[in-house]
């Protein structure tokens, strides 16, 4: 085999191995999108992150129930509630209403039982209203609680 052929073979092999690795990367669980850095609630000391109008994060596939504490932070249009639509791996899961801006809402969400070959499931949030300032703020999200036993 010529040197060019060898390089081409090595390149193809690298591509296949890379693609196999990236289909289910072990670090995906740490990936988030649309979430601002962690802050602490001045009154309660609770850690939270603001979302934008949309946000995404990952949970392990073994998790059966996910509780994501959420708080509106400020009211929706005309003082009404804020709705957060939750989907998992592009399938709608639930709509959660956040009524009082200062109240944390903890809704346990049973995660879909269908099998997945990946280590993590992707959770996407869509917020019904945002606050427009220097940055765009959606809702506050706390630390996720996962139940893997049910």
């Amino acid at each position, binding site marked *: 085999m010529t040197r060019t052929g060898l390089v081409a073979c090595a390149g193809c092999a690298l591509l296949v191995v890379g693609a196999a690795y990236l*289909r289910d990367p072990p670090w995906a669980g740490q*990936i988030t999108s649309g979430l601002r850095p962690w802050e602490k609630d001045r009154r309660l000391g609770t850690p939270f992150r603001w979302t934008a109008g949309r946000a995404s994060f990952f949970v392990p596939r073994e998790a059966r129930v996910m509780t994501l504490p959420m708080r509106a932070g400020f009211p929706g249009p005309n003082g009404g509630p804020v709705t957060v639509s939750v989907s998992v791996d592009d399938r709608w899961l639930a709509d959660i209403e956040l009524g009082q801006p200062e109240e944390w809402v903890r809704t346990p969400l049973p995660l879909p039982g269908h099998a997945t070959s990946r280590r993590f499931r992707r959770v996407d949030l869509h917020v019904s209203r945002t606050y*427009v300032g220097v940055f*765009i703020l959606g809702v506050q999200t706390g630390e996720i609680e996962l139940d893997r036993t049910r």
Partner: protein
Amino acid sequence: MHKKMRSPPRRLHANVTPVIKWGARHLVAIVGVCGFAGYLWLFTRSSADEPIRSDGYNYYLYAPSWLIYHDPTLEALAKDWYDGAYPGFSGILRWPGTNRWSNRHPIGVAVLMFPFVIVADLLTRWSNLPRDGFSFYYQHAAALAGLAYFLAGLAVLRRTLSRYFSPAVTLWTLVAITWGTNLFHYAVYDGTFSHAFSFALICALVELTDLWWAQPRRWHAVTLGFVAALIVLTRHTNGLFLLLVPLWHVTAWRQLGGRINELWKRRGAVLAMAAVAAAAAAPQLVLYKATTDRWLVNTYAPHGLGFTFLTPHLFGAFFSTQRGLFFWSPVLLFAVAGMFVARGWARQVLAPSAVVLALNAWLVASWMEWQYGASYGHRAFIDSLGVLAVFLAAFFAWTSEHPRLLPWVAGATTIATALSVVQMIQYWLRVWPVRDITWAQYRSLFLTFP
């Protein structure tokens, strides 16, 4: 005349040590490894900002709008991400009269980033990451595109310089331009900004212009037209650099008539160049028309920004502690000296280069926000480094013929380059204020690290 100019003096290639030869040949790869290592260090820190931020956000925004939201109006992305608005820092606003989203930055960077964003999008689908335009792969594809274009620009610059200068001069010039200025910073830390892209395009313009005047081929004209369009699409005011094309090798006023004749003789190629440039730039004009109902528009006008041509901040732009080009990149003083001692090919391209550099400097210093916001050094001059490099090389070439000066120039260049690298790392570690640095602040923070 041009054939004579194109053949580099062979004696300069004699007595070259293998180390210098190897260095000149592999410098771009070495810079690439350093750039990628710096990038990994910067963006794996827990306190790291996301690569797509500040101006980089505005430049990038078109790419996900086109690829993921299939919407050139920027409406769909705003709806999905921000409930129909854009964050205040972006300065994206609804144009008075049409009520359409107007992004003050043009589409060129997004066009250049697009192949990288396509790969990021495929990987995002493959890895089941959020296909939102701003998740992991998109962030790094956009920033690494800046690094890749910078390396491409450096490779093109090396090609141009090696035709006329010795390997040692070429090597010193490339090292000084890369690390003695803020170019490396804008390729690695702020790779989503326009400057690394503009640097590459101006280097390509210089190379193609030189080739076109020396040995015109059809592809030179077509590629020149395409590069010219990309230059304007990336930063409209860089259209000034296109003056290099008709004026290349013109050394005196009296030659202008002859140059017009030459251009007329090459009218076919000039027409092809203009047609390609017009076609490639047309999407931006169409976008302006759709957004503002005008074909040409100053998108900064609603922000109250413009030029003050009669009162340029020349001292501030060149020498101030806030942003002075020569204060933060003193090695470029040698490029200015190079304009006075340039010989041969560098002398022949001096007049058009000086005209373009002077006009560009006046333009930069006349911008109301002459500090160009938060930045390391004066970022607006990065785009012209591909031209300044020619005269830096000319100075080093002249120095190499004056052995008594050689150690002094080598020492000063090394110190200036090392200082620039140290100050860049200080900026990375957030030691420097991002703007309005005073002499007192500079002195108190000089060579300090957290």
